[in-house]
């Protein structure tokens, strides 16, 4: 029985009489052919009381090891940053939690203003003048940027850096097949000085080889291995290599680094996209979060998803509406710039509340804290026997190590000691060159004492593994 309905027997009889049918049965018999009626109950567990369902969900939660239960250095796309209490308090408010997309602006000014503020914050962060109100999440935002490029220049070739997250590359390939576009991957540099970042020469060459057919050129900042790319050099090289047919330059950026890293706009990037989770969103085992999407003005009318705009009402009061709707599926149908309807409004609210909480000064302070602690961790860990840096590039919050021992076994030993040391790079990417790789993320929740404990656990685990690996 559904406890959320309210129809009493008396209601039922009165309602059937008003409708003019004798029974519920008749209501369905007259509409659904017998041949497609389900003639049995659904084979699902019986409904339960609220209390019982809570206990079941609590038991399932208890069988997961969360960042609350172990010292977690996992990153690789989502990060255990601190989420301030006021984010929970505001996102749980009925007025934000339970409305639909703001189709009636006169009674949706709260949500629309949040979108407008969010767009302003993302625009400031990325140094690009226009932002939409959110896309689903990081990797699919990259795919949406490729569609924007296709609509903008009608070309079919996408050049990407191998520094993109493997999930981003896989997602992009799935979408590109639909778009009728092909993806060309540029490797990371192999010279010692450039190891860890995109091979700038190969990048320019791959774009030039397209002979004017390259629609978009996409790189990540920082990249999958934590390395800070020279974004200005990559954007400039892409534009020069494309010449008159320059591609749309897309940067997948981690927004929490933008207090210290140069903004994509000032680097010559056309479209900045990224995973918004670090900004005030939970880990939630991978979602929901939000994807940010910002661009230069010339791309405004090809942006995907919702955009809030400012206007006035009949009395001249300032107000907000969903705008540029002629881009959208409910108006443009098969000619829409994307199919997005429901996006991530509540997650974007968490994002803008978080950015307001950090503020102008805080985003820089936090960035500098991450730089310092991450540097400390990298120095400490690479000093361990059997550990080396995968690259020497600057890093902000994450870095890649190479272990001279079996990564899975080392991780298992650390986890047994209560420390999850990071992501097994090869297990995630499947790339041969990632064998032995460990990706370590340092958020502000990981103190110096935590990092010291990681070093101790990792050192001990590697030593034990190396002993175990020596034939008796």
């Amino acid at each position: 029985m559904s406890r959320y309905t309210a129809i009493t027997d008396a209601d039922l009889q009165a309602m059937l009489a008003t409708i003019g049918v004798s029974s519920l049965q008749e209501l369905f018999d007259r509409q659904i052919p017998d041949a497609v009626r389900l003639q049995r109950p659904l084979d699902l567990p019986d409904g339960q009381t609220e209390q019982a369902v809570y206990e079941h969900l609590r038991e399932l939660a208890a069988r997961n090891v969360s960042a609350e239960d172990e010292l977690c250095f996992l990153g690789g796309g989502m990060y255990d940053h601190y989420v301030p209490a006021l984010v929970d308090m505001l996102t749980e408010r009925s007025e934000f939690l339970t409305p639909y997309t703001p189709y009636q602006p006169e009674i949706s000014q709260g949500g629309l203003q949040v979108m407008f503020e969010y767009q302003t914050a993302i625009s400031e962060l990325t140094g690009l003048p226009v932002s939409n109100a959110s896309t689903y999440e990081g990797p699919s935002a990259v795919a949406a940027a490729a569609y924007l490029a296709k609509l903008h220049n009608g070309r079919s070739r996408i050049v990407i850096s191998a520094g993109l997250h493997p999930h981003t590359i896989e997602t992009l390939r799935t979408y590109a097949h639909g778009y009728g576009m092909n993806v060309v991957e540029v490797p990371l540099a192999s010279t010692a000085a450039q190891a860890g970042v995109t091979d700038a020469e190969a990048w320019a060459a791959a774009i030039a080889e397209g002979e004017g057919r390259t629609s978009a050129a996409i790189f990540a900042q920082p990249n999958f291995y934590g390395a800070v790319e020279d974004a200005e050099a990559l954007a400039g090289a892409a534009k020069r290599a494309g010449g008159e047919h320059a591609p749309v330059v897309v940067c997948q950026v981690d927004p929490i680094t933008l207090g210290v890293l140069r903004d994509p706009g000032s680097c010559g990037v056309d479209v900045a996209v990224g995973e918004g989770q670090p900004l005030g969103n939970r880990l939630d085992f991978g979602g929901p979060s939000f994807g940010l999407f910002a661009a230069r003005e010339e791309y405004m009318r090809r942006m995907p998803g919702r955009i809030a705009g400012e206007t006035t009402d009949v009395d001249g009061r300032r107000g907000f509406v969903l705008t540029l709707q002629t881009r959208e599926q409910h108006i443009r149908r098969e000619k829409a710039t994307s199919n997005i309807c429901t996006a991530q409004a509540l997650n974007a609210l968490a994002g803008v509340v978080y950015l307001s909480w950090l503020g102008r000064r805080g985003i820089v302070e936090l960035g500098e804290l991450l730089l310092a602690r991450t540097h400390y961790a990298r120095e400490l860990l690479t000093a361990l026997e059997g550990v080396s840096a995968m690259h020497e590039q600057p890093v902000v919050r994450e870095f890649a190590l190479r272990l001279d021992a079996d990564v899975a076994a080392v991780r298992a030993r650390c986890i047994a000691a209560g420390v999850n040391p990071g992501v097994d790079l090869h297990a995630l990417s499947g790339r041969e060159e990632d064998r032995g790789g460990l990706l370590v993320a340092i958020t502000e929740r990981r103190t110096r004492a935590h990092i010291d404990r990681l070093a101790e656990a990792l050192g001990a685990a590697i030593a034990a593994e190396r002993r175990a690996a020596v034939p008796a």
Partner: protein
Amino acid sequence: MIDENHLHGDPGIDVHPHHHPASAEGASPLQRDPARTIFQKGAPGRSAFQCPETEVPAVDLERLLPARLRREQPPRLPEVSEPEIVRHYVGISKRNFDLDSGFYPLGSCTMKHNPRLHERAAALPGHARLHPLQDGASAQGALELMWNLQQALAEISGLPHVSLQPSAGSHGELAGVLVTRAYHEDRGEQRHKVLTPDTAHGTNPATVTMAGLEVVKLATDEHGGIDLDDLRAKADEDVACLMLTNPNTLGVFDANIVEIAEIVHGVGATLYYDGANLNAVMGLSRPGDMGFDIVHFNLHKSFTQPHGGGGPGSGPIAVSERVAPYLPVPTVARREGSRGDGLPAFELDFGEGAAGSKSIGRLRGFHGNYGCFVRSYAYIRSLGGDGLRDASEAAVLNANYLRARLRQEGAGSVAEHLPLAYGDLCMHEFVLSGGPMKRALGIKTLDLAKRLLDYGFHPPTVYFPLLVDEALMVEPTETETRETLDAFAHAIGAILAEAAEDPAIAADAPYTTPVRRLDEVAAAKSPVIREAL
């Protein structure tokens, strides 16, 4: 009578059901406060954030990050204290109407009650702070929950294979159309057409284009279903798929569904079910039994994930055996007895086996919107199979009652001015035409919708579906009381009665909202989409 629909405690919204334009001058002064964004508040140097101690030895910034890679000027984010942030967002929240405050009969959106239990369960650290790259052995609770949800959705839809990955309904549509495309390509066929009825949600044709296929429209017959002659004429070997919503956006269950499936399958195409309207048929009729090959679910509709003012959503898909090899990855698999203690283990399945290699791949990072899975799974466990059927029955009962109640209002004048567009009964929603109202009373559907705001109701979906003149699409859902439905019917009657006296009342509405009618044309013409700083 409509107390529950007032915007409680809101100084900016003063609901007077009979507010006349002449008295608009007397509105609350707070209501006229100009909207100020968070960027217009605070003061230089103010901050809510207290940075933790660095704790580690200081290193020259230039060594950590060379100047050419470093940002020169900090982004101009707000400079505000924590109390200011709270006041600001609590304040603007009160300029929002929401489901917890009142009736929200937005057609095709299924605005049913969002139980708070779900928020509590999803916030448990074992769910909320679980990292997506946590080892499978350390995420057995999460993987079991996902597997259980897959099983439940398979049973509800009658289609055995489920991927939870898509992030929303339209994302599920894209997954489904790409699956269809992969299926045909695997058979060496380049089918390029997708049939969509003219009643389809806008996401259907938008998705088809993104998937590299071409939209072919199907006509609607006099009963509100697909015109079978048109379907027969257009169903050929170039057709990859027919995308259908059943019941459709007119609230009509297409009684020819078996024949439609035969025609579509007869030319080798797939049949796609847009699950936006699944709330009408849970436990009563299953897409798989109707002959559909692919269905997407909107967990944020039928399965009550709160809509959040425009997301998050979640759009899992379920498919038949025929197209199962092409499902997006990863899915969750159950391995019997593999844990050593005789209990099953759950793991992510990336489909690297022979069959799985045909997968269309990923559509996003990680495994889908898990936080939404927790909520919708809690809902399914709360209701059980019988409860889901009860919910659908009550949704259809409520819709028919409201439809019938409206016919009684104003001694039949509402029925005359707002006739049902198609059919006599309806499923979970119905569509009225405001055409006669416009001609007889001089007010448009938009005016009726705006006047409803003064009465404390969220209006129905308006001007959709496109084939109905001045459409008004009403979906009350199962969680509303009879009293609320009566109050809404009464409000419609009252607005039409007002209009008969003076159409300007509705034409100039609303009067009592935080802002009145907004100039959308100006907003689109010279877009201002961020605060100038």
